């Protein structure tokens, strides 16, 4: 782990008010304990055992994109988009359909009292969460994966959706 990453990790944990932190990677082990008014946790034998992980990937808290998974589909879409943009019809609107990747229940908001993730007319980016699909109490956030304007929502809140069913239409 690089010292810059380590510093940022410690800063994040400090900000969150951590009491203990342990990490072990190949050739590297660190344990931080923070004093305070509250009694610190003791490391009993039943604590998770520290075992050197064969996975060489360190926690990367600096430059959050470093470990972000490569957006495979997006890169394909992006190249298609750039080709289209280069054509004389580039001023024409492109409509993108966001579909459900799973059978489940559609939620427009994180909770019944919360604001919807998106509304018609909202500008969205690739990373914008547009809805949650629940299946077997797995709450899965669906990201837009495209930037543009939400022009249509095909389903009602709490409606059951099928695999591949249309959820939103986005003008890109």
């Amino acid at each position: 782990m690089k010292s810059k990453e380590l510093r940022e990790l410690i800063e994040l944990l400090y900000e969150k008010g951590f009491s203990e932190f342990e990490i072990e990677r190949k050739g590297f082990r660190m344990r931080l304990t923070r004093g305070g008014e509250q009694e610190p946790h003791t490391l009993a034998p039943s604590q998770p055992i520290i075992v050197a992980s064969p996975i060489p990937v360190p926690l990367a808290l600096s430059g959050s994109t470093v470990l972000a998974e490569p957006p495979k589909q997006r890169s394909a879409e992006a190249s298609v988009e750039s080709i289209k943009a280069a054509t004389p019809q580039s001023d024409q609107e492109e409509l993108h359909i966001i579909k459900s990747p799973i059978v489940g229940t559609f939620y427009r908001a994180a909770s019944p009292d919360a604001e919807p993730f998106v509304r018609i007319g909202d500008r969205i980016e690739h990373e914008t969460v547009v809805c949650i699909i629940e299946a077997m109490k797995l709450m899965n956030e669906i990201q837009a994966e495209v930037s543009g304007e939400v022009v249509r929502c095909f389903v009602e809140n709490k409606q059951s959706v099928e695999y591949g069913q249309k959820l939103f239409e986005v003008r890109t």
Partner: protein
Amino acid sequence: MTTFGSTAYRFNSLPSTNDLARELAMKGAAEGAIIVAAQQTAGRGRQGRSWNSPPSEGLYLSLILRPSIKIAEATVITLAAAVAVRDVFNSEYGLECDIKWPNDVMVGDRKISGILMESASEGEHLRYAILGIGINLLQRHFAGELENSATSLYIETGKSIAPDEILRPLLLLIEDEYNTAINKPDHVIERWVERSSYSSGAHVRLFIGDRTVYGITRGLSESGALILETEAGTRRIITAGEISLRKAE
């Protein structure tokens, strides 16, 4: 191969371990990292429901997962987690528990553990998943709306088990069940069916959105969805809803 818990973030108090786990996962935290808080001030269940998380009386745990699978294949993990929690109660403390579909761990009709998995997908593929587990351990009693619906390990067995004491055996079982869910999901379904009184032949009431459906359970699909034979005689595949056993009339 990872060892769950080899990276552990511990806090005296957090609003929600799942919320911090999500933040860390988005910043690249590795699979198997755990977040544990002695107390949650805004512990969550599904769709904004709260999880009662008094200081040091329960285990409040979130685990970061990064399986290379499709989101449609990830639902089995939530059932696998329930099998692991049920088994740790049984093997470590001799407590017999039931699993209410899909993943509530129950003693009779009282909940002792709740599981909430949250994930983000990109296309059909899972980017990361957060497995959140709350276990009631040391509570002496529950008040208000939980009075008749919740229980704890202490109430059921008289044993005072600290959160850290149950953590290690639990993580070992979760890791084992998780690997099975990825490689042989049908084995997880089998184990779940063996352990749940809800799995087959149970007369149940199911709240789906604003509707109530009555029927008899007829096992699980390969993704863990509940197969329900309705009173009208049709079979429905249920992926979400609140289930309860119908008392004998």
